[in-house]
């Protein structure tokens, strides 16, 4: 338990660095976790070299899902859209640095799903994106 709610996660939940919206975003996507109603919207902006210069999220959900979104957005800064497409479940788990039960994993991976759907410019996200 101490692990699950360790300082870093609570800190990102309480003081998110990347919360907000980007008016003229290049990539955007939003989705929810139907199990619990968590909602996540992300915006990405890239420069002419395809580098992600801004990454913001808005949403509501538990500490795990919101901290995960903040960490993912932070990690994308300076990366490319191709890098975003390559994000994996393992990357998210490494960022969070905690063990998660299958149910809580879904909370953590909403940000992965939404990020990849945005990067691939999909109309609809499916759960395969969470692998």
């Amino acid at each position, binding site marked *: 338990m101490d692990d699950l709610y360790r300082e870093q996660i*609570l800190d990102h939940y309480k003081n998110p660095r990347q919360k907000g919206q980007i008016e003229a975003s290049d990539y955007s996507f939003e989705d929810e976790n139907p199990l*619990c*109603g968590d909602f996540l919207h992300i915006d990405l902006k890239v420069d002419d070299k395809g580098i992600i210069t801004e990454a913001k999220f808005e949403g*509501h959900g*538990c500490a*795990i899902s919101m901290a995960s979104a903040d960490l993912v957005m932070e990690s994308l800064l300076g990366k490319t859209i191709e890098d975003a497409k390559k994000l994996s479940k393992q990357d998210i788990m490494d960022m969070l640095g905690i063990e998660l039960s299958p149910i809580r994993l879904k909370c953590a991976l909403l940000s992965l799903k939404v990020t990849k759907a945005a990067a691939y410019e999909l109309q609809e996200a499916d759960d395969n994106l969470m692998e």
Partner: protein
Amino acid sequence: MLQLKKFEKIKSDFPIFNRKVHSDKPLVYLDSAATSQKPLQVIKAMDDFYRNSNSNIHRGIHELAEEATGLYEAARTRIARFLHIDNARQIIFTRNTTESINLVAQTWGRKVLQKGDLIVLTRMEHHSNLVPWYMLKEEKDLRIAFIELTESGELDLEQYSALLEQNPKLVAFTHMSNVLGTINPAQLITHMAHDAGTLVLIDGAQSAPHFPVNLTELDADFFAFSAHKMVGPTGIGVLYGKLALLEKMPPFLGGGDMIRKVTFEGFKVNSIPYKFEAGTPAIAEGIGFGAAIDYLESVGMETIARHEQELTRYAMHALGSVAGVTIVGPEAEKRGGVVSFSFEGVHPHDVAQILDSEGIAVRAGHHCAMPLHQWLNLPATTRASLYLYNKTEDIDALVKGLAVVRKIFT
């Protein structure tokens, strides 16, 4: 009341409370609205069946088949008595409340309802009493209207009365909300509907386990509930229906047991209740359901209701005193043993997770009532739900657990 000897002993009937969770914590189970725990009496009845009487039912000629049939049908009779009705043929075994409601939608609804017909539901329904009607609405181009809620989370009967002027074909409502805890005035709602020539379906998933239900008095046309929420096994539920309606309804699923005669040209349906019970049913579960009814009756439904009423009052007071807790739904007197709440600054998932680490099982989420949470303007809530094996010390543990949650999130 809470100190009654009876309730001291009850917990020891439920073997699950002998185990520890998270290695050394006693189990504080506050999730009975999702499913109840099972007493030894029920587990034993099912175990006995498999050990000593296992056989398929209804057409076997051998001793085991007769025994199995006898046990299974005796359960049906006991359930009828439990609901205060005379005719056990009105008890149809299904898988659960959800299947019971789908049965009505797919047989009565499909046959009787026509384009433009109105169905009345309420804003506090579980998905299982929404989606079957939504599905039928799409298929048959029906209209659906909702009984509104008052600020405290009760049904707005004035608005309901106005809806009845549009001559709906059916009113389908929950006897007790699985989120707000509200106990709806089922008899009054039914009476009003019948005066308007409207049929009534009651979702009894949260009521039949917790207080006496007298279907003769209630006069509902359909009543649906599940065994697993009333100390019985999963996989078996009941649909009760008025005889005249059941007789006229087409069958639900096709197969064995629901037929009287099959030829190469067609089939003739069996009489009720078998008409709606295609295939080998959940026999051991049916027998377990009968044992569950016996168990509840041995404690007494009135007694259970009083015990839960006391506990609910205690829980509402205790939770209401925790800073940051907002309870949804009406005052204790108007509800059953369900207390859903939000905890300021902490998402219900986080609340539930931290409580779990303290050995306290609650539920977090929308509890299969997403539209209701939309109405509440909350994405999710944390729900503590009570049953006959709970005691005030479980509530005390919950309050202590919330202090741990607060500590982590401040």
